[in-house]
């Protein structure tokens, strides 16, 4: 009993010292509690469905950010990883009869291979050339899939996949917890030394090369990591929808991912996640006026960008927090002095 009390007190002081001091961390904590506690308030299947899709796409947007936001290798064909993940786990599930627990990770591995295959040639290209070339890959694959209807179902897609579970709650918690864990893993990756090298590659690749770091290897690592997470989200999507169709590979899919990620704020991981959690439900709300749905969406994105070109979340963060000029640690905007080194905040 005493031991439990000790750990509880330790946990409490950790939360007070590390989480509650910053409004942004408090918001993240509240978000996690809210999304895990949602079933206590309502059991509406439609709402659950929206949250599950939002979670799946949050993984996808965060994986785009891991590649393009951090290393600056603009990938316009992120639907490729999503589609490869969806289709390969669908093929493994329907033709080889592997249960979803196996087919989703295997599908992600196939997506990693896809990342390697397109990453190796594409890394010779730079900037806009890279962006426009990656755009081509999902379309090539889409053409192949539609031309080979025997294995892939052609335009109709592959249907009749198994779900993970058929219970409402099981599905909800499976997807939400997967999303939280994977996004945390991605955030940890970007917070590590590897993440710092990714940042540096975006800022100045030549300087990174000059420091004796093999940038090609790190860019390839970014491609494969991003492919892995996007492949998982593709597999989850296919198994939840119970269909893997050509829509997973369309150009609009690639564009939507880019919109979500940049809207939320690139190179942050939490930005794209928040972007999806704002924009996807917005698109659902806009279903009340179905004919103006996409118009509302595009106008909303345009207006937000006009005032917050860095993205929505970094803008909010700069409003509620200040960075200490001396030790670069963030404090609440209301404070006069830094919470660590007591330097004057301006």
């Amino acid at each position, binding site marked *: 009993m005493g031991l439990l009390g000790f750990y509880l007190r330790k946990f409490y002081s950790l939360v007070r010292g590390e989480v509650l001091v910053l409004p942004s961390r408090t918001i993240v904590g509240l978000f996690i509690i809210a999304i895990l506690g949602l079933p206590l308030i309502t059991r509406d299947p439609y709402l659950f469905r929206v949250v599950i899709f939002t979670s799946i796409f949050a993984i996808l947007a965060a994986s785009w950010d891991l590649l393009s936001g951090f290393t600056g290798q603009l990938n316009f064909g992120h639907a490729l990883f999503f589609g490869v993940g969806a289709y390969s786990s669908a093929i493994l599930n329907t033709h080889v009869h592997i249960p979803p627990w196996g087919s989703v990770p295997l599908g992600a591995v196939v997506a990693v291979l896809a990342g390697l295959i397109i990453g190796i040639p594409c890394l*010779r290209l*730079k900037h*806009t050339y890279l962006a426009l070339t990656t755009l*081509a890959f999902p379309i090539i694959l889409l053409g192949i899939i539609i031309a080979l209807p025997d294995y892939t179902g052609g335009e109709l897609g592959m249907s009749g996949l198994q779900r993970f579970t058929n219970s409402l709650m099981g599905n909800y918690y499976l997807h939400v917890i997967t999303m939280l864990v994977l996004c945390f893993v991605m955030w940890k990756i970007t917070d590590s030394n590897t993440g710092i090298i990714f940042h540096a590659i975006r800022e100045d690749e030549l300087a990174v090369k000059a420091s004796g770091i093999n940038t090609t290897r790190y860019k390839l690592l970014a491609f494969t990591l991003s492919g892995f997470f996007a492949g998982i989200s593709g597999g989850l999507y296919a198994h939840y929808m119970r269909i893997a169709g050509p829509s997973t590979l369309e150009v609009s899919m690639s564009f939507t991912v880019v919109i979500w990620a940049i809207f939320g704020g690139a190179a942050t991981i939490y930005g794209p996640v928040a972007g999806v959690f704002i924009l996807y439900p917005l698109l659902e709300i806009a279903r009340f006026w179905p004919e103006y749905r996409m118009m509302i969406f595009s106008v909303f994105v345009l207006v937000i960008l006009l005032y917050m070109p860095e993205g929505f979340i970094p803008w909010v963060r700069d409003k509620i927090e200040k960075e200490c000029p001396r030790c670069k640690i963030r404090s609440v905007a209301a404070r006069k002095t830094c919470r660590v080194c007591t330097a004057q905040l301006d």
Partner: protein
Amino acid sequence: MNIIITGLISGSLLALLAIGFSLIFGVARIVNIAHTAFYMVAAYCIYYLSIGLGLNAILSMLIAVAGVTIIGLLAYKLVIDPIREHEAAVLIATIALAMFFQEVVLQLFTGDYRSVDFLIQGFFTIGGNKIFYQQLLTFGVVLVILLVVWFLLMKTRLGLAIRSTAEDREVANLMGMNESRLAMITMGISVALAGITGAVIGPLMVLTPHMWMEPLIIMMAVVVLGGLGSIKGSFIAAYILGFTEALVVFLVPTGAFLKGPVALTTMILVLLIRPEGLFGVAFEEER
């Protein structure tokens, strides 16, 4: 014969679009995803003016091109110019713009398939193949416009300014060129080119609000293949990809599905050998 005609027509379409796209990219470093959306809007304007209002076909084309240019400049001034420094933001702003145009057109004209009348009716036959006069006219107009653009870029002071800004923005600015005004003018030219494309190709195509998606991808392939910012490269690459598509459609079974993939694979293969495109200049390591 059919292959040659289809190749020439789609090559011309791509050439016009790609030159506009690479102009604005070269001068202002804007990847304008909405470029083909302007082409779609122009085609619909002509449809509305000539069939809805019953105006003369050529008059409605002129009005449509002017109108689209004004819409393009307004969009540039209101949406793109304020966030020029943030490249990523500009990118999704243009995507959102394209979606916005698509939705507006969808609301005004519904998603039904529409078509515009030919300017001149009739056809003649060579070796059993029909060739419509409209196809010849389109090809002729495209050549004239390409010549005009070439003249503008190579022989006038404005062209010199555009080319030098495309080469090195900072130095051009230091030499006294008003960079933001130049970007504005280039945007106007580029959108006007997209509008003209819509005007001349419109009669040969089926109009739908989603017609901007397909040429967008191939247009980007053309621009990359020819080398970003190279007009000559875009021109040649457009015909290469135009003929590739035509060959695939006519010679391969299920070719209609594979025409995009084959064209894009061609682009990727060329890029593997020459990463800066056919006629592109290898960019200095930008810092």
